[in-house]
């Protein structure tokens, strides 16, 4: 060979090598149906088919998207302050973020749950958990606003929460981190000696008002309780909690909590628990907690409460059973018929499926018990097993159901969603996910009647998917059409925070019920000003209450005088009675307060301590009208 042909070979080699990445790219997008773009396209003026409510993970919020377009419509602040509308800053909502630990204006929110009636989504409320400082919240789906937050005592890491029973009778909340109950400073290695406990909390939801209260807590062995789902139809009375670290390791859990071949799914009969409570088998137990409620057009009221009813499993036989489940199960999901309980063993090589009927049949037969842990019988694995999906993928986590006899399981390690058939346990399709998928969600997929059609996978990592934006890349959700025999990838989109779980609801269930305004005549705010004639300034010593109105395009009163050090409360009522016309209110340089965004007919309060002498402008921050820029005025602060 001469030099020339060598050179040609080298060039050929380089060319071939450079083609490889292109081929790879071609392969990864080959799954996209050619008409996918038109199937997610929602023409201008048209509406999306589905609302998707995604938890915001470490953003502490909830976001609302339209599906299939994947357009972001709203961020609902729940556990985090929100400068956009003053949530957590203004006098009306700052008490919403009160806890027994003080004001906690952030959380880690994982699971969105939709309220249900007869196992079907009813479009009334969404619920969201706070993992870090144990709380759960109720979001009203007329106003898309957070109305109530309840702190959960005697727990740490409210992860297996808030999962609803079939008629939203109760929401379940279980401990992720077992701790001494009641709290105490003990040697950490006492965890391995049973010194740490978990609790399962039944939070009652008033069926008319949605108001939350703690019905009962059950003291359970100190494992890590991870996720939950409640039964349906025949399994109506039961909720199922996955657990890991049944080894009760307290250091290097990566190894210590992964030793045993099987951990457990805890089957909990909540009807039986209530029965035992009513029979007086629960005892009074301590635990301080806070309940914050924001009624329409009133300042939120924060109530400090103390004590719960506590129940020990051994005092209530028939209430709890452990079902061994391989291996460190994460998800525990109940199919639409209520028969199958699917475990997501994140380190397991199978997807185990328990049968509810079998569990009922064997639960009180001694020969099907292997042992007992702190009064809770442990059933034999084979005794409740309906079947196993063999070698589905790596790292199965969560399963949702399409109502057509198929289940979809997310697989974190192998970055895919597997579709498999209930009953035959056969995998019928592998869908790649980009990348590291956690939860997935089907429209109505956790109800008794899934709407189906769309599935979203919520991914943790998006390397190479979008334009790079520095070191932290967005998390994403990936949309599939599951309406035909073969699921197809339609699109993916970046999300707010890290979306853990989602509930998707058909748009027709919500869109006509959303509130358009607060009727002014029903405004019960103690500082409401219902007409411009009532606008006034009231001085009480060094405190000044300004009863202010906002309407296109002015405030009244518009000239304010104060002295340095005086406290001013601007109670601003938006006099508009027109859809989509909020007014904003902000004062230049105001510390500790951002902005008010006042809905039509609503009153909100901005607290301001007059700073050093000068002229301070205030203005409307929401572009409300042609004369919006004129919607501004001054406060004079004198020495």
């Amino acid at each position, binding site marked *: 060979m001469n030099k020339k042909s060598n050179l040609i070979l080298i060039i050929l080699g380089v060319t071939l090598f450079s083609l490889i990445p292109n081929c790879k790219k071609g392969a990864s997008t080959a799954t996209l149906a050619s008409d996918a773009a038109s199937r997610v396209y929602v023409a201008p003026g048209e509406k999306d088919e589905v609302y998707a409510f995604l938890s915001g993970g470490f953003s502490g919020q909830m976001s609302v998207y339209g599906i299939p377009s994947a357009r972001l419509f709203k961020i609902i602040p729940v556990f985090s302050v929100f400068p956009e509308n003053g949530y957590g800053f203004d006098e009306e909502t700052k008490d919403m973020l009160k806890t027994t630990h003080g004001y906690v204006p952030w959380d880690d929110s994982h699971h969105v749950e939709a309220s249900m009636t007869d196992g079907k989504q009813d479009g009334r409320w969404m619920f969201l958990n706070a993992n870090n400082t144990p709380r759960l919240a109720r979001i009203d789906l007329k106003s898309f606003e957070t109305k109530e937050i309840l702190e959960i005592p005697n727990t740490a890491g409210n992860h297996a929460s808030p999962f609803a029973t079939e008629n939203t009778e109760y929401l379940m909340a279980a401990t992720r981190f077992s701790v001494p109950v009641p709290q105490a400073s003990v040697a950490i290695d006492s965890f391995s000696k049973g010194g740490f406990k978990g609790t399962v909390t039944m939070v009652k939801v008033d069926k008319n008002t949605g108001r939350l209260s703690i019905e009962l807590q059950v003291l359970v062995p100190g494992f890590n309780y991870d996720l939950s789902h409640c039964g349906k139809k025949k399994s109506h009375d039961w909720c199922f909690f996955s657990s890991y670290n049944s080894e009760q390791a307290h250091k290097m859990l990566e190894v210590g909590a992964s030793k045993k071949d099987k951990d457990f799914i805890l089957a909990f009969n909540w009807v039986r628990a209530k029965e035992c409570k009513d029979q007086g088998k629960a005892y009074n137990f301590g635990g301080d907690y806070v309940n914050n409620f924001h009624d329409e057009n009133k300042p939120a009221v924060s109530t400090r409460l103390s004590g719960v009813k506590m129940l020990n499993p051994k005092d209530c036989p028939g209430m709890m059973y452990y079902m061994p489940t391989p291996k460190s199960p994460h998800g525990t999901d109940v199919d639409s018929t209520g028969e199958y309980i699917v475990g997501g063993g994140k380190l397991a090589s199978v997807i185990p499926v328990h049968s509810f009927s079998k569990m009922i049949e064997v639960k009180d037969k001694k020969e099907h018990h292997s042992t007992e842990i702190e009064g809770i019988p442990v059933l034999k694995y084979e005794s409740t097993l309906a079947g196993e999906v063999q070698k589905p993928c790596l790292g199965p986590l969560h399963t949702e159901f399409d109502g057509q006899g198929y289940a979809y399981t997310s697989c974190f390690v192998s970055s895919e969603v597997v579709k498999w058939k209930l009953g035959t346990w056969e995998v019928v399709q592998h869908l790649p996910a980009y990348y590291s998928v956690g939860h997935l969600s089907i429209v109505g997929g956790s109800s008794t009647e899934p709407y189906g059609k769309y599935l979203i996978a919520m991914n943790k990592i998006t390397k190479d998917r979008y334009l790079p934006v520095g070191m932290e890349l967005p998390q994403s959700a990936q949309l599939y059409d599951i309406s035909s025999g073969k699921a197809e990838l339609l699109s993916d989109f970046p999300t707010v925070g890290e979306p853990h779980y989602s509930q998707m609801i058909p748009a027709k269930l919500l869109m006509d019920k959303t509130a358009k*305004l607060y*009727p002014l005549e029903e405004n019960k705010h103690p500082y409401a000003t219902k007409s411009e004639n009532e606008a006034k300034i009231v001085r009480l010593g060094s405190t000044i209450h300004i009863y202010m109105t906002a*309407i*296109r*395009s002015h405030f009244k009163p518009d000239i304010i005088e104060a002295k340095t050090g005086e406290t001013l409360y601007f109670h601003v009522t938006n006099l*508009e*009675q*027109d859809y989509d016309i909020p007014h904003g209110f902000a004062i230049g340089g105001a510390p500790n307060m951002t902005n008010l965004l006042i809905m039509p007919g609503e009153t909100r309060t901005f607290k301001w301590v007059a700073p050093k002498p000068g002229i301070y402008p205030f203005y409307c921050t929401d572009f409300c*009208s*042609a*004369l919006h820029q004129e919607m501004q005025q001054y406060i004079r602060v004198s020495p």
Partner: protein
Amino acid sequence: MKTLLFQTLSKRNRLLILGVGLILVSVFLIPIWSISISAPQYPEGLGMQIWINKITGATPYDLKNINLLNHYIGMQEIISESIPELLFMPYVLGYLIFGAFITELYPKVGMAILGIINLIIVGLVGLSDFWRWEYNYGHNLNPDAPIIIEGMAYQPPLLGCKVMLNITACSYPSYGGVILGLSLVTLVYILWDENRRKKSNVH
């Protein structure tokens, strides 16, 4: 002519007049006229309804929002209390209904003719008054209004649609107006029918 005036109404026509009197009672309960407004920022439209004794919005908030829009161009606020016509209009309607019932006691063709004349007068006076009212609202603008466009007036149409700035306003009779019109048509029909009856009697 005189024989026609004092001709006793047929039984059927007396019943028709009774029907007119009864259906006119419903005009107390339904709007007579409606003006609807649409603009890009009001894709669902705003509506205003004129009743025998009041002006309302098509929704509880429409009138307030129409007034809010109007204040930019300096139109007076539309409130029922500022329109004196609305105070005596119910009496006029009462008089018409009273006339229909009196006709039952004194069932002469002349009463039907009186009814026709009354309805025409009420209609003409009402429409011209409505036009005058619209004219005043549309022309009598606050000189300090934020938006002043040289030569621009905002008089809504008496009947039909009109574009003013970015707003399309349409004005049409509502149910009550239609009933008043039908009442007039019925009376004219009765007159025509009685006239035909008189001719056939003569032969």
